[in-house]
């Protein structure tokens, strides 16, 4: 009798959490319909492809960050990692290294910078927010040292790479999708991913039951760093130049994407695939739609602020629910 009556209780709870989960997609759909109806340019293949193009870098970076967040930590240095690793790549490009190798070096540098964060968090046991606030500033400083404050236009041969497309779809959109799917599989279907979620539930409990907590967190920061480097490559290609603004604010966009995507900042809960796609599309669609509406360019900020607030509110509700029992 116990199980019968309690399963009824929980089904009410499920219904409520279902509403919590599908509330955002429904709002997104309504927005989509609104923009499509209100502006002529929004619902066109070219515009939707441009939308998917524009969100690619942040989607890639947010995927990596999602790993760190799932483990109950935070990495706000991803924007600076993007900048510094691309700057390193830029120097090597100047030395005449072939482009694919430079790309690889950028991703690896991102991983190394992620490992620096990981070392401070895991070995020196400093809070991850404090750590990455520090490295956010430090990495950006190093990058400015390396590439100067002037912007550097990319060589034509390299710049063209940013416009590669298969049919109407830009290559970076496809790569972003592959990255999100790969991270999703890593999180959901590998032993590492499940241990990551376990650590996010409680690092203390995870270590009590014998999970390699330090290693799990370390790897998450390295993945986050690598993907920050990769996202930095596409962000640079989209601009066509390496500027001192590269990656600035990206960390906050990435956090916003994660929060709006329903990945809990408390750790351990969320779905990478639907979360990152939902979050990234939401922000880009609003930005793009407002442009088409000829809205005041500053309108985007308060609106996205409101969105983030609503998402956090929903998250605190959900987390309260699962923390209680």
């Amino acid at each position, binding site marked *: 009798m*116990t199980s019968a009556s309690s399963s009824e209780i929980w089904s*009410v709870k499920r219904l409520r959490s279902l509403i919590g989960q599908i509330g955002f997609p429904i709002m997104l759909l309504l927005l989509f319909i609104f923009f499509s109806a209100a502006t002529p340019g929004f619902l066109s293949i070219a515009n939707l492809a441009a939308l998917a193009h524009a969100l690619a870098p942040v989607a890639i970076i947010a995927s990596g960050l999602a790993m760190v967040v799932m483990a109950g930590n935070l990495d706000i240095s991803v924007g600076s990692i993007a900048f510094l690793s691309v700057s390193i790549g830029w120097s090597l490009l100047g030395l005449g290294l072939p482009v694919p190798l430079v790309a690889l070096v950028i991703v690896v540098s991102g991983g190394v910078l992620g490992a620096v964060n990981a070392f401070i968090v895991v070995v020196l046991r400093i809070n991850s927010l404090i750590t990455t606030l520090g490295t956010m500033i430090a990495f950006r400083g190093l990058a400015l040292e390396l590439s100067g404050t002037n912007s550097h236009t990319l060589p034509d041969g390299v710049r063209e790479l940013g416009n590669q497309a298969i049919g109407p779809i830009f290559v970076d959109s496809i790569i972003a999708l592959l990255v999100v799917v790969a991270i999703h599989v890593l999180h959901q279907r590998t032993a590492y991913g499940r241990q990551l979620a*376990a650590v996010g539930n409680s690092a203390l409990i995870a270590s009590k039951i014998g999970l390699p907590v330090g290693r799990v967190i370390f790897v998450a920061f390295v993945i986050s760093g690598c993907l920050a480097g990769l996202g930095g490559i596409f962000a640079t290609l989209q601009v066509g130049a390496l500027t001192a603004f590269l990656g600035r604010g990206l960390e906050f966009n990435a956090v916003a994407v994660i929060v709006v995507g329903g990945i809990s900042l408390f750790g351990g809960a969320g779905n990478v695939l639907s979360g990152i796609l939902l979050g990234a599309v939401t922000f880009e669609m609003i930005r793009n739609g407002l442009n088409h509406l000829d809205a005041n360019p500053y309108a985007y900020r308060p609106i996205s602020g409101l969105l983030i607030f609503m998402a956090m509110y929903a998250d605190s509700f959900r987390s309260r629910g699962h923390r209680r029992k």
Partner: protein
Amino acid sequence: MMAAPGLVLSNISKRFAGVSALKGVELTAAPGEAMALLGANGAGKSTLMNILGGVIQRDEGVALLDGHPLDLASPRAARAQGIAFVHQELTMLPTLTVAENIMIDHLPTVGGLIDFKALKRRTQDLLTRLGCRFDADTRVGDLGPGDQQMIEVARALSRESRVVIFDEPTSSLTEPEKQRLFGVIQGLKSEGVIVIYITHFLDEVFATCDRVTVMRDGMLVSTGPVSAHTVASLAHEMLGEGSLAGDIPTAVPPADEVILSVAKLTRARVLSDVSFEVRSGEIVGLWGLLGSGRTELLRALVGLDPIDSGSIRLKSSGHLVTVTPSQLSRSTAFVTEDRRGEGIFPGQSVEQNLSLPTLRQLLNRFGLVDRSRERSLADDLIGRLGIKTSGRGQDIATLSGGNQQKIVFGRWLGSQPTVFLLDEPTRGLDVGAKTEILRLAVEIANGGGGVLLVASEPEELMRVCHRYLLMDRGRIVGELGRGATRDDLVARVSNRAVDEVLQ
């Protein structure tokens, strides 16, 4: 030289911040043997087992298995050498599924990906063996404490082990679940596994264990066969000379004056039409099985869960006035069944945890908390409840489980509310402390307060209650007077459980 097979812990010592928790403890157990480990709250049982489980490191001592030294540097190392641990405080990962929780440190994989079929099959086998009826894909956060405790056991059994430690495994289990657990322990013994069993339910020792080791204040008191003991002799060894708390005074008959009146309290699918009254000086026992709605009723009363309809009236300056649950919660003492989740504030000191409900009365004329009064309140409560702590400044999270429970109850004694809602207030307490809490409940009643008491053990209710409310599936299905026997109580709810099975 051939060493004796089995586990040997020798001369184990451990100090925390200068305070000795273990002083040269010895413990041995042979393969196929179940060793009971007993001691009062704070005696050091969990600390000793945490050392064996690699959770904390010993300062001194030797640990051998079959004559070979054990590497107990981490839980992982201990586990790899066949030591499984059912923790006193549940170690659940609420956002993961049951299967993932059980197998988290050895998930089966093919080609780098988790083999979910094998995972499910293997967990389902374990759950069947334990007689659990929930699905392996359920999210653990959606299950109650009893089910979670079974998952904790399942995790320990999921790997081949040489030693299985059970640290108070039955504190949230129902009777049938307990019986199944005992069956599993018999199975482990016949496979030659060493079982170490910690409990405060002394009768369980006689049902499951072969030998018994008693600890007191971090030291070994005695070790020997269970057959040489009685419940009384064990209690005596645990608590030492003269500290067996005296008898519980009889509660005087309650006055006629109703101080809490609840009418038609309803919460969809959880509580329906719950009505009852509590009189001044009365201790009302709320009896029902796990999941009957008893915890849910208390939670709804104090506003932790929303209610759909119904009214609550509370005596206030001579009249019964209608109050909301959150108003009620401000003038009642509420002891939660979920100590770790809701009862304590980890990271805060014993003193801060004790003074919480009383802070308003401790303000000085500047509106700040008067530290010296706070301190003396804390010292007073520590003394009255016999809370074992190195000082009022100790982090509550580092107290033994039973001593944390004493604080969850004891903090209300300072503010002296008239209504006490107690959900399993004696969970995890040793026999002496249990008696002490029940004695305090009687004192509260004799002082004119009203107590609503939930307990899983009918014997416990029967020691103090004036009458019993019987709960089943969110309803109050009956009421029994003081003279009711254990069988009366059990029969009323178990008949229904049987009906359910037959349907």
